[in-house]
């Protein structure tokens, strides 16, 4: 089905281009165009829209979504899916709040502990997917139940966080010159994106991820460590969810079992709108960043409008998902039609 070279080689066959662009870049270009169009629309409709702080707030208010979506990108690149991230995030906020506020543990120790816990949670899911060849969808669905259920076991009420260190982190604003400032969570999100981009495009791990997404069988035949990489991909997604949980604990200053309900859907939507193919093998971390920003801009536009109700956000996200999925299919069909004659020629 996927005729394009999966690894990041230098081969760009003419037959795989659309309007002079590499096939793999077409979805990303569409995403960017949409993003720019939305900014222009916002700027024309509302005077205050172009203020730099509006854009920084996109990152500040969506820092946890950005981190989760980055982890999700890797999972989807391998052709899998991770539905447990939202619940795992909520579980992290609960564990952090309970251990710091009720058991009075050292905050730094707790943070290290939950990051390790999230990674282990993801690794177990990856192991089940790889070792017993279970469907990622159903494994992470069960993981979602486990994490959300454990939240309720800790407490069904919200636990407020009053620890001085976390309070300090929550109210810290790092000035960026002018009158704009950024939060600690946003910085963590930006660092995560940078590290993930490096992982995806400059490491052996990243190349293996793309190869598995193209064809797990071929990747295994090439001698790539498919199993280990799959486990690590889910572990990374779990790590990202735990990190996002820390960011959310600081952002909300509370741990609550109903935090981040449905976040996994937003993350998947952001990844898809960011141009990553759900069949795996094609996509960019940068695209996911733009996808998250688009979701953020939709919310900002709804808020700026003032008369639209919040449910329009969900409807618009659904419509965008639809448009992007259909156009992905069209691109795929076009590419398979274009590459069929060329492969005959090469015989």
């Amino acid at each position, binding site marked *: 089905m996927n005729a394009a070279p999966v690894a990041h080689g230098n081969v760009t066959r003419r037959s795989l281009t659309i309007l002079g662009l590499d096939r793999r870049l077409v979805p990303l270009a569409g995403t960017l165009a949409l993003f720019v169009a939305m900014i222009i629309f916002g700027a024309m409709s509302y005077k205050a829209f172009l203020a730099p702080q509006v854009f920084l707030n996109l990152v500040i208010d969506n820092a946890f979504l950005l981190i989760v979506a980055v982890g999700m990108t890797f999972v989807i690149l391998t052709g899998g*899916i991770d539905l447990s991230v939202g619940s795992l995030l909520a579980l992290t906020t609960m564990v952090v709040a309970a251990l710091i506020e009720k058991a009075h543990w050292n905050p730094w120790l707790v943070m290290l502990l939950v990051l390790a816990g999230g990674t282990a949670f993801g690794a177990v899911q990856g192991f*089940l997917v790889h*070792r*017993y*060849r*279970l*469907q990622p*969808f*159903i*494994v992470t*669905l*069960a*993981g*979602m*139940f*486990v994490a*959300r*259920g*454990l939240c*309720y*076991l800790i407490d*069904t009420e919200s636990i407020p966080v009053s620890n001085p260190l976390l309070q300090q982190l929550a109210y810290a604003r790092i000035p960026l010159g002018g009158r704009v400032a950024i939060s600690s969570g946003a910085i963590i999100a930006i660092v995560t994106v940078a590290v993930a981009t490096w992982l995806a495009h400059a490491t052996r791990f990243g190349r293996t991820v793309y190869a598995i997404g193209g064809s797990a069988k071929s990747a295994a035949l090439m001698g790539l460590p498919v199993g280990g990489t799959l486990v690590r991909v889910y572990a990374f997604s779990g790590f990202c969810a735990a990190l996002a949980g820390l960011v959310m604990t600081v952002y909300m200053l509370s741990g609550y*079992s109903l935090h981040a309900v449905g976040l996994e*859907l937003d993350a*998947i*939507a952001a990844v*898809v709108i960011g141009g990553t193919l*759900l*069949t795996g093998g094609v996509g960019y971390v940068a695209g996911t960043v733009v996808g998250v920003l688009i979701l953020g801009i939709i919310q900002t536009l709804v808020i700026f409008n003032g008369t639209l*109700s*919040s*449910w*329009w*956000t*969900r*409807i618009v*996200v*659904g*419509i965008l*998902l*639809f448009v992007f*999925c*259909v156009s992905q*299919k069209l691109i795929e069909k076009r590419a398979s039609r274009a590459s069929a004659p060329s492969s005959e020629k090469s015989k």
Partner: protein
Amino acid sequence: MKSLFRHSLAWPAVTLILLLGLNAVMNPGFLALAWRDGHLYGSLVDILNRAAPLALVSAGMTLVIAARGLDISVGAVVAISAAVAAVIIGPTGNLGFAIAGALGVALLCGIWNGALVVGVGMQPIIATLILMVAGRGVAQLITGGQILTVYYAPYDFIGNGYLLGLPFAALLAGAVIVLLHVLLSVTPLGLFIRAIGINPVASRIAGVRAQPITLCLYAFGGLMAGLAGLIISSNVKSADANNAGQLLELDAILAVTLGGTALTGGKFSLAGTVLGALIIQTLTSTIYSLGVPPEVNLVFKAALIFLVMLLQSPDFRATFKRLPVRPPGAEKTS
């Protein structure tokens, strides 16, 4: 005895009996049935009544999964159908119109899913994800973001009424599922669905009209979710766009899996699915009677999913079959 245990329904049936037995031991009045106010009364009747919407949705899901599909939008469709019914019945009071409207919209939702899967060729999870994300927004749009309450006696009957001493919802679900079962066994439809699930390409070459059938299965799944939406909203006398049918898609998938339907398609059992739905509802009742916070139910469900899917995995079974004969030290080389 051995052949009895090899029957595909044996394990779900044993699970259900064990769960019921556990309840009976802990709560002596659990199995008691009484005749009160002209209808049967007791925990068992209650479980039957509450399992009805889940059984209906799961029946639709069974067929979709059997043909290698998946429908994760059913919870959202339940919310939409409930919203439509409440909006129509509020001002008009016309029950027939409200039911037709709700079922019609639900059917349209199912056709939309089917068209995306069959027509556009999307992966089922993604195609139905779109409606799952947008659906609750649409439901809120219909209700205007409010929880609509419905106090209308005939409508109330769907979810709370009794016919011949039994809950109407359970009878309705039973009738629909029996009809479906007859349809699948009398016509070759059941065979076609299995063929599509086992190998879509081969079934098409063999002359099975896979695409229209698959489309109909999604449409039917939508219709069942619509019916469940009617029952659920009638039962609680309100339409809540945010919470009606919340996580129902997951319960339905769990019920289907528990009943022995393979998630990879090609093998299904409607009776098993009904047992699965009853198991889930009994589990919920058990948790309540144990005095554990009901939310912890999620952990039990997750444990069940893990157990069932590991038992279904050939690789997992192979590990255990090999264990006794594996020579010491072989672990390192494998």
